[in-house]
C-alpha cells in the first residue's frame, strides 16, 4: 500500500530529485493482447526489444510471453515480427 502525501512541486511539474516516481499500473487489461504461435516463433527477441511498455519477458523455455497487466495493446510486436508468430487477439 502506497501512502499518498502532498508535496508542493515547481511550476511545470519538474521533478528535480530522483526516485519520485511511484509504481503505476496502466489498468486491468487492454482490448487486444499479443498471442505467440510457438510453431512459428524463432526466439529472435524482436518483440521483446521493441516493446515500449516492458510487458514482454523471456520465459524459462526460451520463448516470450506478455504480462497482460502491463500491456497496452499497441501491436508493435505483431507488426514487427518477421515470422508472423505474434497475433493480436481479444483479451477475455
Amino acid at each position: 500500500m502506497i501512502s499518498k502525501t502532498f508535496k508542493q512541486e515547481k511550476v511545470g511539474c519538474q521533478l528535480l530529485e530522483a526516485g519520485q516516481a511511484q509504481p503505476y499500473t496502466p489498468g486491468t487489461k487492454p482490448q487486444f493482447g499479443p498471442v505467440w504461435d510457438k510453431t512459428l516463433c524463432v526466439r529472435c527477441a524482436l518483440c521483446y526489444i521493441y516493446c515500449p511498455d516492458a510487458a514482454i519477458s523471456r520465459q524459462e523455455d526460451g520463448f516470450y510471453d506478455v504480462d497482460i497487466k502491463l500491456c497496452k495493446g499497441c501491436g508493435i510486436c505483431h507488426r514487427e515480427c518477421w515470422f508472423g508468430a505474434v497475433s493480436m487477439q481479444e483479451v477475455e
Partner: protein
Amino acid sequence: MDTYTLYAAQFLPFKEHFGPKGHNACKGCGVALAVRQVYKALEGSGANIEQAKWQIPWEESIIVNSGAIAAGSQPALLSIAKKEGALHICFDNECTGGRVDTAVMLKKLPAVASASGCDYSATACPSHPFDLVDKIRKAWDCAGSAFVHILCPCPVGWGFEAENTVKVGRKAVESRVFPLYEIAQGYYKITCEDPNPQPVEGYVKAQTRFAGWSAKKIIALKEEVNANLELLKSKTQKTL
C-alpha cells in the same frame, strides 16, 4: 557484418530499469521505447542511471543556439553525470502542437553539440536498436561530454496507428529525413548506409500531420533532405 557489436536482442540485459511496474505513457509511445532501450544499453556500464536527471532542454547550453528548438519543439533531455563531463540524451518527438515545418524536422543538434565541445555526438532512432545501443555505449565510454539525439515517433502527435511506431521511425531513417550518423572528435561517419534510399513521400504519407502540406512543400522538403544528405556525405569524405 561488423557494423555493430550486437545483432541479437537476447544478449541485452533482461533487467528492467524503466517502467518495471508499468508507466502511463500512451500506447505505442516512441519516447518510452527509446528510454527503455537507453537504459538497457547503460546496464552494466557503471552508469548511475537511477540518479539520472531529466531536464528541460533549452536550459542546456549545448542546444540553446539551435533555432529549431526555439521554433516550438520541446524534447525531453536526460543527463547522466560521467567522470568528466556528462552524457546528454535528447528524446525528440517533434511535438510542435500540430504545426510542423522543415526547420523542426531537419535540425542538426549533433553538429551544434560537437561545435560546443562534445567529444562524441550522434543521432539514433529506436527503430534501429542495435545502432542505438552501440552509440549510447560509445557515448558513455568516450572521454569528455557526449550528446545523442534520438528521434522518437509519436503516434498521437504525428497521427499514425500505434502499431506503426517502429515502422515510421524506420521510414524516417530510410528516406534520409533523419540520417543516422555520428561525430567523434570532429570526424563524421554515417552508420546506417543504404545505397537506395526510400522516397520521402512514403514517410510523409504515413502521417496525418502532413495532411495540410501542398505538393510544392513536399518537393521543397525533398530537395532540402537531399541537400542535407550531400552536405553530410561531403563532411564524411573530408575527414577521411
